[in-house]
């Protein structure tokens, strides 16, 4: 979940109200936001909606709160309706080269005039740029953002493909020109993000009409044009990426933020030599004109009570949405910086949030249903009570464990296991296939606990099974261990026998060779002639593996076999 920082004063100014910290905090749920910390006017805010990138910035959070306070948002006029070519100033054009289709095909941009960039503004822009590139843009693979001093740029700008070895420019943070290949090898951003261009024979480059480099998307800006400072007053914002909806949406969010800070946004015309989902000439910021049609009966059905149309319209407008009423339904229009509606229920949730979740009276569920435990859990509960009655203490341990714990350390070097491919720690690299490692680990670390030890675990294990549709299956097992100076097979057998007696079930023991146990002191438990577990005196070589210095005997029983 994205987390941002913002100054209270900046938020107050963006909202246009002197809200106290407490008042602000009370309104953060409107943006599914949560105040995590406040320190000297600096707020840390967590945004929970991963499908609303427009909210991952001070401007977005403030906008959502402002809309609610004012009953609606004044329309943003900077977005260009498709086909409305007139709005595009002729000189602000980005021309895309054909070969980029296979590299990083899409670009969007706009110009900001009429404001001088402030410290808050620049910090917030950089933060938004990072959230859009990292979270929304999947670590710059799908989307990345650049900001430039537009006063130094000569139009038209060209988005071209170049040879990594020959093209050079001075990147931000360096004094000397480097080739693109050198940037990927030496520049910190190059090292961080070179994975995006892996395997590409040619790299993207953004240059102006005088062949000055703007940037090397998605890696780094040039020092000449791509260094923006407090006090600059004419800026170019550019977004490149691999998914056009995302590229356009990111540009739209940044444009709304610029407008919120008092800027005038001027469009840029992006010309492609290939087809895009939005045509070959796309003027950005782009007006998606997204909307859904919501029937008032659907709202009533989701909410569980009738809703008046005027109230529905009022709440939706106060959430920053455009509304148009038409025969019992309402057309809900998303502002161009949002593209998260997939279904009318999305608009219905916005209505509920705007009205306030706590304004609706909860209704107790009245459907009559009968509760029931699963058969295996019923049996498990019965077994746990019996085993406790026999004097055993129950442990519960992790299912993820180390491979050695389930193989060499229990004398079964070749046991088939369900293992993890992306292991984080060898300590948690396989799913246990038995409860025995859990019981022996407990013994190994519990030598200070007064003896005798009688301990059990009842829990899930994962058994490798090629014939199962998931290639393994989960079993519920009981594992019980006794450990003290004279712990023996016969004592363990007594407990197993008592358990089966009270469960009113029959079992047989058959001698078995089992690596965990002393030869001749191990048995396979059989229920109805089928294997159901094992019992034995633990081999001293196994005890040694766990640093256990008292004799142990144990049994393990698969409860599924008793159902």
């Amino acid at each position, binding site marked *: 979940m994205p987390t941002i920082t913002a100054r209270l004063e900046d938020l107050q100014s963006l909202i246009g109200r002197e809200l106290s910290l407490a008042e602000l905090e009370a309104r953060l749920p409107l943006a599914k936001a949560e105040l995590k910390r406040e320190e000297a006017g600096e707020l840390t805010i967590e945004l929970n909606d*991963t499908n*609303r990138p427009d909210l991952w910035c001070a401007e977005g959070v403030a906008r959502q709160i402002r809309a609610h306070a004012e009953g609606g948002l004044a329309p943003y006029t900077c977005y260009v309706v498709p086909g409305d070519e007139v709005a595009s100033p002729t000189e602000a054009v980005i021309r895309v080269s054909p070969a980029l289709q296979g590299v990083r095909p899409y670009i969007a941009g706009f110009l900001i005039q009429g404001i001088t960039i402030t410290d808050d503004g620049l910090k917030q822009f950089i933060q938004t740029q990072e959230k859009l590139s990292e*979270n929304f843009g*999947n670590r710059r693979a799908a989307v990345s953002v650049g900001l430039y001093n537009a006063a130094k740029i000569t139009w038209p700008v060209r988005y071209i493909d170049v040879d990594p070895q020959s093209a050079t420019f001075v990147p931000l943070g360096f004094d000397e020109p480097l080739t693109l290949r050198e940037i990927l090898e030496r520049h910190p951003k190059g090292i961080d993000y070179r994975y995006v261009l892996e395997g590409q024979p040619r790299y993207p480059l953004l240059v102006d009409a005088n062949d000055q480099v703007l940037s090397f998307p998605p890696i780094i800006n040039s020092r000449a044009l791509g260094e923006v400072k407090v006090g600059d007053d004419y800026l170019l914002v550019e977004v490149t990426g691999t998914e056009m909806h995302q590229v356009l949406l990111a540009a739209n969010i940044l444009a709304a933020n610029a407008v919120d800070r008092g800027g005038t946004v001027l469009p840029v015309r992006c010309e492609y030599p290939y087809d895009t989902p939005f045509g070959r000439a796309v003027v950005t910021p782009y007006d998606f004109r997204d909307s859904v049609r919501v029937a008032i009966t659907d709202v009533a059905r*989701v*909410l*569980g*009570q009738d809703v008046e149309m005027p109230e529905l319209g009022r709440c939706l407008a106060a959430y920053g949405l455009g509304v148009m009423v038409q025969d019992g339904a309402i057309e809900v229009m998303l502002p161009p910086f949002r593209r998260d509606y*997939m*279904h009318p*229920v*999305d608009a219905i*949730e916005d209505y*509920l*949030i705007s009205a306030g*979740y*706590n304004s*609706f009276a*909860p*209704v*107790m*569920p009245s*459907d*009559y*249903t*009968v*509760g*029931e435990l699963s058969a295996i*859990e019923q049996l498990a509960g019965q077994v*746990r009570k019996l*085993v*406790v009655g026999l004097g055993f*203490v*129950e*442990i519960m341990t*992790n*299912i*993820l464990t180390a491979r050695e714990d389930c193989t060499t350390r229990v004398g079964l070097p070749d046991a088939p296991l*369900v*293992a*993890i*491919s992306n292991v*984080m*720690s060898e*300590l*948690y690299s396989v*799913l246990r296939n038995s409860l025995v490692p859990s019981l022996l680990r*407990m013994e190994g*670390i*519990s030598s*200070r*606990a007064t003896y005798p*030890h*009688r301990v059990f675990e009842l829990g*899930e294990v*994962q058994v490798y099974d090629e014939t199962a549709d*998931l*290639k*393994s*299956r989960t079993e519920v097992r009981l594992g019980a261990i006794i450990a003290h100076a004279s712990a023996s097979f016969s004592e363990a057998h007594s407990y197993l026998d008592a358990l089966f007696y009270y469960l009113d079930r029959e079992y047989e023991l058959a001698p078995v060779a089992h690596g965990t146990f002393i030869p001749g002191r191990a048995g396979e438990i059989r229920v109805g002639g089928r294997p159901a577990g094992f019992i034995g005196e633990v081999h001293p070589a196994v005890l040694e593996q766990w640093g256990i210095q008292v004799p142990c005997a144990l049994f393990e029983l698969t409860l599924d076999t008793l159902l």
Partner: protein
Amino acid sequence: MAEEGAGREALLESLHNLEERALPVLAERGSADEEALAAAAGMQEAQARTALGWLQSKGLAALVAEEEHREVRLTETGAAYAENGTPEERIWRHLRSAGATAMPVLMEAAGVEKEEQSGAIGALRAAGAITIGPGGKVEATDAPEPATITRDRDLLRAVRERQPAPLESFTPAEQQRLQEMAGGKRKGKGLVAIDLRRRRTYALTEEGKAVARLLAERGVREEIGQLTPAMLQEGSWRGARFRPYYIGLNPPRVLAGKLNSYAEFLDFIRQKLLAMGFTEMRGSLVENEFWDMDALYMPQFHPARNIHDSYYVQEPEYSDPVAEPFATRVAQTHENGGDTGSRGWEYRFDAQRSRRLLLRTQGTALSARTLAAGPKIPGKYFATARCFRYDQVDATHASDFYQVEGIVLGEGVNFRTLLGLLKLFAAEIARATEVAFAPAYFPYTEPSVEMHARHPSLGWMELGGAGLFRPEVTQPLGVSVPVIAWGLGIDRMAMLALGLQDIRDLFSADLDLVRTRKVTETWK
């Protein structure tokens, strides 16, 4: 007088057998310390101390003198030296009988440890008892046994005879030597130990003397300690006196069989859910991406669906193909909404990826399977499911953990019944009377809610999240009624209930911890 007599009778009656045995000794001797009393009454010193303490608390005996003295006893080394001689003595004697000997041979023969060698050789040379000749051979001189050897041997043996011996019973010169032997340059290497002991002398008070006289008249009675089967068979308990027990002592610890506290807590949650009419769901720890994520309308490009959030199975990598019609319907819903009225996520769905095996990341996978399996309508389902996330294990992240979650289906399900259900959970599970709802985000529900509840003693806490399943989830799985999906923050609740700070302790394998842990009163 009568009153005094009655009080004295009561005192006499209250006497423990130990006190009854101590009283005559004190009466006869006038006074005694613990050691003397123990010897005279035939009891252990600890028993004598207990008897004197009781008598004192009843006003029958009083402390008349308390003195400190020091006692000398041999250490293990000292005992060995007293038996076999000091290293100096052993070296000198060996040389006297065997003649000139090379150093290593000598030390071996005399049984002298490495760290004792240089000290012993130095002392013998200083006393003029040995010389070291050419070639490093050691030889005894003709001088008689050095006085220091004789003195130390005699002193160590004297201590052995009399230990524990009062330090004051030795001559001042011996005392000084004993202090040296106790000190030793190296700690714990001393030959003797000198302990400070406290001797307390008690005498009977006037009342004590009166009770002692009364006791002497009546005689010490036979007392029954443990009642035995023989006594019952013979009836010998009749007329006997049962020794009163001191019931304030700590009892020996019982090693009881015991359910795990975390399991008890989960049982408590299960009981509550059963009482609310929920049926339990079970499933596999290993899932494929289809049921864990695709069926829940999480797009395949979703940030939570990569190797940094989920554990993938090494081998085999893929499950059998996903059953139809679910595979096709879910794929279409992702791509363009299918017939759900949604526009979908607008990307190309990868059916192979659906079969990728992983460790279940959320209990909601069970809800998806339940929806596809033809659930009861109306119906309520829950699961306590072990889940796995790709997280560094620390105080707040476990490698695997429980999620308690479930679904409610029915024509009557809507946003307000969802709020009602959450309020019911808050009341039943956290005894909360106050709840607050806030908007939340889950990829598979719309609208989505999170609930905070005020527990009467623990205060506000996040109790869980819920929502109405999106039509993109329910319709492809063949369910046409609204469905609530809910989940409870069970880890945090369990930690509060068990008074734990570290999530890893929920699955502790430390038997001492598990034996002593209980569900705290604050939760119940």
